């Protein structure tokens, strides 16, 4: 029976509460003892053939008959006031249909104005043109004459904290005016009790998502109904927002994203471009397409904000932490929102005394957004580097220090549903050969031998750990329809953004239905005729959706069993379906004989004609009495070239526990991809901003460096398959974000072990390595 509950869950390091409808299920959980036939075995992607043949249609591939093209006019200035807009030359160009300006969008309306008069970052939207083709739209955008009053941008966080003049947003320069402070125990006493107190400042850079498919939308008004193709991580979320903005019933809004070229946190929406396309499509009565280009992607579609973190750690001689204090400033750009940088410090270790102070600071730069584990790679870089420093100063093994401070419960007092850190440390250390790791060298000795020409490359080993709460949440619903040809269709208003959701859910449905995976069709990424599905964020797609799909499949299986029981004149409990074949329980006395190998379901139903078996399922709430932890323990071997300063990661080992493994093939891909994101963050990705004008200097994929084929180390992954059956019926947690979290610290710790030099500023570029070597040589 569906019922309304108030439920709490952790989302990207923050607790959320909501009232929602859940459907309880009484399924036996897929705990450690469950024997599963399909789930847990590697399976290639069920939509793989579409992705390798070019048949998969992404949002950027949607071209509709009669479609128009929209192009945004963006401010070249980081801070300015629009004085006037002259569209006459643009409108005179043949093929131009419309020019939109801020006047078209009154303040205070239900639609958030997608064009600005007050420009607060370079690339902010000030006007838009709509034309018959993309080239004409682009020409016309260049002909829109915007007169600006250029103002000096606010770019430094120090000045943002000092200034009371609201510059970077109308609300002020600090998020909510004050820092977020969290405290437990008595930090001052904790530091007084410590044998060693370390205090260091760590800085991290702004990272850009650069999903290969740009952001974009195609909008079409079909009478009263609105159709929007959007490259989004949440078709159901976009539908809800659009319905609200345009005063439509949700049923009159259809949002489609069948294939998605990567999002990484920056593609929820609807965004300003979506509203421009929807608005123009209504005004002109034709479909309108607005797909951003790579330059726009790098200016205005979100980022992982830069941070400045001062971390103070107190510890006993044996490594036991006595106090932690973190002050973090996160540069959220103009009105953006970043993640919880203090998350790792708050929950990863059992430290009785803690104070974290987080400032979200607004400056005149591109707004921050969610980015694959928002806040955690930033916070983990500081925390996990500091623990390494602490271990070194105390003469202890870095793993020993982590074991010593293993949190038996989440610091808010809730016990873990399970926490596999200790096992992961042990398994990882053994597989990596951690015991061969000797002490770090004296950096002066490295510098001396380098100058003497005796040393060209040095190598070191490092490790770091990370955790993430990702147990999933309601609401998440699915329908499972069984057809007379023995196949089934899973339908939900969720989406596969490239992570393998369709495949994982197909395995879950096949397992529960007793059908081969090939007999399961997946219909995701289209809100029409689909129940609400979760957004793909917080590593929560599988952990939210798999339990719902399983419940829906079980419902369909029960209906099917009743149908077949009537045919055989047995009880429904006596019907067994395995690999698409119907068997009867031992002792059943059917009116129609069943051969030893069973009967194919398709064969049985062939002559029956259409059937109407539709199961529905919803996700039960995640129990609030236990805390969830997906854990990651990473090991890195890095080589540092002392001539060029280049850091090369040569070998990498990742141990992960995320509950039950559904598809080890795609899960391994997720981990590998996460590690590459982390390596880019550690070594070369950085948005460079002109310090005076606030211009992005590398808004392209040539000078903004992402990992290439040449940057891939040997990566080994160890999946600890440990069903976490307290959390949901499929005993699963998330894996999308955990592999990114510890990477930068693991690399920095390996570089320290190679050189004796500690890098507290990301990315660790050759220039920084060479400068550090030169400096130590002078000492």
């Amino acid at each position, binding site marked *: 029976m569906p019922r309304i509950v108030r439920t709490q869950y952790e989302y990207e390091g923050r607790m959320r509460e909501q009232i929602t409808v859940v459907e309880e299920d009484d399924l036996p959980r897929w705990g450690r003892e469950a024997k599963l036939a399909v789930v847990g075995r590697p399976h290639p992607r069920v939509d793989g053939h579409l992705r390798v043949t070019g048949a998969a249609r992404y949002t950027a*591939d949607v071209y509709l008959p009669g479609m128009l093209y929209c192009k945004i006019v963006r401010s070249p200035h980081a801070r300015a006031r629009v004085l006037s807009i002259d569209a006459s030359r643009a409108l005179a160009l043949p093929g131009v249909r419309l020019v939109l300006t801020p006047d078209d969008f009154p303040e205070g309306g239900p639609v958030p104005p997608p064009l600005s008069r007050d420009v607060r970052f370079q690339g902010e939207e000030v006007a838009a043109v709509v034309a018959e083709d993309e080239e004409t739209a682009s020409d016309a955008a260049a002909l829109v004459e915007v007169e600006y009053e250029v103002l000096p941008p606010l770019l430094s966080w120090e000045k943002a904290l000092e200034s009371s003049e609201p510059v970077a947003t109308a609300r002020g320069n600090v998020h909510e005016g004050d820092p977020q402070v969290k405290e437990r125990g008595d930090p001052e006493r904790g530091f007084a009790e410590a044998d060693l107190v370390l205090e260091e400042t760590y800085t991290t850079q702004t990272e850009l998502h650069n*999903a290969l498919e740009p952001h974009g939308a195609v909008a079409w008004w079909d009478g009263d109904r609105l159709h929007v193709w959007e490259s989004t991580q949440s078709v159901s979320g976009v539908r809800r927002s659009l319905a609200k903005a345009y005063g439509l019933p949700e049923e009159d809004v259809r949002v489609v994203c069948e294939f998605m070229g990567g999002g990484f946190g920056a593609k929820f929406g609807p965004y300003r471009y979506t509203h421009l396309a929807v608005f123009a499509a209504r005004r002109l009565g034709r479909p309108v397409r607005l797909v951003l280009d790579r330059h726009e992607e790098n200016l205005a579609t979100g980022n992982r904000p830069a941070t400045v973190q001062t971390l103070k750690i107190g510890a006993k001689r044996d490594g036991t932490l006595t106090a932690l204090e973190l002050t973090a400033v996160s540069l959220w750009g103009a009105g953006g929102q970043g993640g919880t940088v203090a998350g790792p410090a708050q929950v990863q270790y059992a430290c009785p005394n803690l104070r974290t102070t987080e400032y979200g600071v607004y400056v005149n730069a591109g707004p921050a957004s969610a980015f694959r584990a928002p806040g955690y790679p930033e916070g983990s870089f500081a925390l996990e580097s500091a623990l390494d420093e602490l271990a070194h100063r105390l003469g202890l093994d870095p793993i020993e220090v982590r074991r010593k401070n293993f949190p038996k419960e989440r610091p808010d007092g809730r016990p873990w549903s399970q926490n596999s850190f200790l096992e992961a440390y042990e398994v990882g250390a053994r597989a990596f050969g951690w015991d061969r790791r000797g002490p770090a060298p004296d950096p002066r000795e490295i510098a001396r031998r380098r100058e003497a020409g005796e040393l060209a490359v040095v190598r070191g080993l490092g490790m770091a750990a990370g955790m993430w709460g990702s147990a999933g949440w309601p609401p998440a619903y699915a329908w499972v329809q069984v057809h007379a040809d023995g196949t089934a269709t899973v339908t939900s208003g969720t989406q596969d953004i490239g992570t393998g959701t369709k495949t994982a859910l197909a395995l879950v449905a096949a397992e529960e239905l007793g059908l081969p995976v090939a007999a399961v069709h997946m219909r995701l990424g289209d809100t029409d005729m689909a129940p609400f599905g979760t957004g793909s964020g917080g590593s929560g797609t599988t952990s939210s959706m798999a339990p719902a799909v399983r419940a829906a499949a079980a419902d369909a299986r029960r209906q099917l069993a009743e149908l077949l029981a009537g045919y055989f004149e047995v009880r429904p409990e006596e019907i067994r379906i395995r690999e698409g074949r119907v068997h009867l329980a031992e002792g059943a006395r059917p009116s129609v004989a069943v051969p030893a190998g069973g009967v194919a379901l398709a064969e049985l139903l062939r002559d029956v004609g259409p059937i109407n078996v539709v199961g529905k399922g919803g996700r039960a709430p995640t129990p609030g009495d236990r805390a969830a932890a997906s854990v990651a323990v990473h090991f890195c071997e890095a080589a540092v070239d002392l001539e060029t300063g280049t850091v090369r990661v040569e070998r990498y080992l990742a141990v992960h526990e995320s509950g039950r493994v559904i598809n080890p093939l795609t899960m391994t891909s997720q981990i590998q991809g996460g590690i590459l994101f982390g390596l880019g963050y550690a070594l070369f990705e950085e948005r460079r901003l002109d310090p005076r004008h606030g211009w992005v200097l590398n808004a392209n994929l040539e000078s903004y460096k992402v990992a290439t084929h040449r940057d891939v180390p040997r990566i080994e992954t160890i999946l600890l398959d440990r069903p976490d059956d307290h959390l949901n019926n499929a005993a699963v947690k998330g894996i999308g974000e955990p592999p990114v979290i510890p990477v930068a610290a693991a690399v920095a710790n390996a570089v320290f072990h190679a050189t004796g030099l500690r890098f507290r500023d990301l990315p660790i570029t050759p220039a920084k390595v060479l400068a550090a070597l030169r400096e130590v040589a002078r000492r």
Partner: protein
Amino acid sequence: MAVGTAERTARPRKVPVTLLVNGEAREVWIEPRRTLLDALRVDLGLTGTKKGCDHGNCGACTVLVDGVPVYSCLELAIAREGQAIETIEGLSRGGGLHPLQKAFVEHDAFQCGYCTPGQIMAAKALIDRNPRPTPEEVRAALVGHLCRCGAYAGIVEAVVAAGLALSGDGGEGRPDA
């Protein structure tokens, strides 16, 4: 999107161009500035070839011209008239997957799949001339093809495996890195 944002009151005249795509002659009427990428996607409806950057940085738009991989976003369509253009859609004609496509699926050589057509076309050019590349040769040939999901390891495995399958080698004597 194509080059050129100069002010003009008249649209540049469209010209007829015959493109030889996947073995078929197709006539399109396009502005001279239209890129090969846009001609394929917009005028011919061949959206398997992807636009990632439009600057020759990401490799998602790679097609083969007379067997040579090119970034189609950096080519003008009119300049390739009459040359043999092969796109991802041409690889699996007749229904069956090309060994490269099969290997990409088996080795999970992609996540979102947006870069995949470009990776596969570049890989095809490689194994057409060197059916048994080493992993290092694969990396060298594909280094201009970005995969933001980070499926590189699977891509290299898949290309090596497809080369072996095409040259009739069941996996014996698989070259090492």
